[in-house]
């Protein structure tokens, strides 16, 4: 009966899309949560790095030559406090306790710079104490270092590097794209897995827990049709769920990185989209079949979810292997389920995907899922598994 697979699929869709609670908790909320969380993390990170507006940095100076402060162009940028060398240790404590943002100690021989001749030996050393854990202190430190460096260069200048203009040939967009390419494999694998975990446990362990699966098992439906219908429909629903979380993270990644870049950060061609889709679909089939088998073993949804957690760690670890681009182009590695997905995603984003390797990955994942369907069908006809209480 071919219609049986379609009948089971239609019921699963109706069950999912007809239930506002399910749709909002597994389709809408996760995407929204990821977006809000990443955006928040991004802006929290930015504010950690920046000094609040209107704040005047305070620095203590010891032994600073007269008039140097203004010469350095620090007037109005830093509020200077001139101190003597006796209070050095006390002042260091004040920098630690944030009373001062930085402390600059000039050597007694600082005036020697007027008489320096080449080759240079024993130049005066200015010491600047700061606290790298404090944004204000770091800011004061770099302002003073920059000012002193400029001052030094205005005195003794052999040559300049990158004195004017923009030299980094990578655009902001490209930098954003690089970061996305780094994060996407791990994020995508994580979202594909969490989608599968939520959907498969609810549908299979849930039906077992509520006793509705036996009602299906007394109908003439073939166990294999039931397994196929479940796995196909659950895979499509889980794919849709991971799509929303992926969209949410793609939209918030630029914010997470603090780049004022729009969504066009990464250039994905239609062919890349098609490959990504094929890989995601085949990966989710693998995840759904694994989670379905686990759910069929478990006595309740909770138990099935608990079994899924260690697998989630494995999936994320595999995802991390794709962070720095594809490891290898060896086709044999593309036959390992899930690992091949990570490598493929990484290769696609780096525009290094080979048609052969993508095909091997999709074929191997599909074959693995087919074995999963067979196993699930066998489990459906095993009374010890289906009626374990």
């Amino acid at each position, binding site marked *: 009966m071919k219609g049986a697979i379609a009948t089971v699929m239609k*019921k699963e869709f109706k069950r999912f899309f007809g239930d506002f609670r399910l749709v909002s908790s597994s389709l809408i909320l996760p995407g929204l949560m990821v977006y809000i969380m990443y955006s928040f993390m991004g802006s929290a990170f930015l504010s950690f790095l920046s000094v609040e507006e209107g704040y005047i940095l305070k620095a203590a100076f010891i032994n600073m030559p007269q008039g140097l402060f203004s010469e350095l162009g620090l007037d109005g940028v830093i509020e200077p406090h001139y101190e003597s060398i006796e209070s050095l240790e006390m002042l260091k404590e004040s920098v630690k306790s944030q009373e001062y943002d930085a402390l600059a100690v000039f050597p007694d021989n600082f005036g020697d710079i007027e008489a320096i001749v080449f080759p240079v030996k024993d130049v005066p050393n200015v010491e600047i104490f700061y606290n790298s854990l404090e944004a204000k202190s770091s800011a004061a430190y770099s302002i003073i270092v920059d000012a002193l460096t400029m001052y030094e260069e205005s005195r003794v200048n052999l040559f300049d590097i990158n004195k004017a203009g923009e030299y980094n040939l990578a655009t902001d967009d490209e930098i954003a794209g690089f970061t996305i390419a780094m994060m996407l494999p791990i994020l995508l694998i994580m979202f594909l897995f969490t989608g599968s975990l939520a959907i498969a446990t609810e549908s299979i362990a849930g039906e077992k827990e509520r*006793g509705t699966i*036996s009602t299906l098992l007394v109908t*003439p439906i073939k166990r294999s049709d039931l397994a196929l219908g479940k796995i196909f429909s659950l895979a499509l629903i889980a794919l849709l769920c991971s799509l929303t979380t992926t969209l949410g993270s793609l939209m918030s990644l630029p914010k997470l990185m603090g780049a004022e870049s729009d969504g066009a950060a990464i250039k994905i061609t239609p062919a890349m989209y098609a490959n990504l889709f094929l890989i995601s679909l085949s990966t989710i089939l693998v995840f759904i079949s694994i989670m379905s088998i686990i759910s069929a073993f478990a006595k309740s949804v909770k138990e099935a979810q608990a079994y899924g957690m260690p697998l989630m760690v494995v999936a994320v670890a595999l995802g991390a292997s794709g962070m720095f681009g594809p490891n290898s182009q060896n086709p044999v590695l593309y036959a390992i389920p899930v690992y091949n997905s990570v490598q493929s995603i990484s290769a696609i984003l780096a525009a290094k995907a080979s048609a052969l390797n993508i095909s091997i990955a999709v074929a191997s994942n599909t074959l693995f899922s087919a074995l999963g369907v067979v196993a699930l069908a066998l489990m459906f006809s095993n009374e010890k598994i289906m009626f374990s209480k």
Partner: protein
Amino acid sequence: MSVTVEVNALCKTFELSKKQMKIEGAKERRKVAVDHLSFDARDGEIFGLLGPNGAGKTTTLRILATLIKADEGDALVNGYSVAKNPEKVRERIGFLTSELKQEDFFTPNYLFGFFASLYGIESGAAKKRKEELFGRFGIDGFSEVKVANLSSGMKQKVSLALSIIHDPGIIIFDEPTNGLDVITAKAVTDFLADLKESGKTIIISTHIFSIAEKLCDRIGIIIDGKMAAFGRLGEITGESSLEDVFFRLYEEAGGILL
């Protein structure tokens, strides 16, 4: 009348978990639930399996419905073996027990369509069948109410209607009136009597003597997984009442009456 269901020396042993052993006070790890059980049922009759709690009635019926497998022996349903041809058997039977639940989320209307298509009933015939069954059990007024919101009696009637959606020749009901009020129970037993009139084979299980006496043409008394008596009601009881016969059989089987 011809034999439609033939049960030959069925055996079923369960492995008990430690927890189960404690609950049941069992000393052995293994529980023989059905012990070389044989009987037959014919079309146009109601056959009753009568027995105390834990006698093995539900286990026997679940083997007939192909939900679980026998360790030994076999049963033929319209000539198809439950062990070798479970799908053919499932096409020919309607099975109902309280362990079979309907999904809370769906309405009777949707579920009817779903099961009709699982059984391969085309939509015109399904619509007619739905009117007939929903009308008979008074489900029509509740056909768009989610199962979760139905009373337990109405739930049971919906399950009953769904279990015979494909108009099976053989109907197997485990404790058909359990948990029903007298009115609903009567609706169900009347329905079973009608099905019998139309030539179906009906097998029920019960531990209630009055149901066995009123409804069944032939009965089998199961005690401890074994068939203690089997035949027409009159043949088994003779002059005494069914209850007395039962207590005598129970004591003969080693049971202790408190």
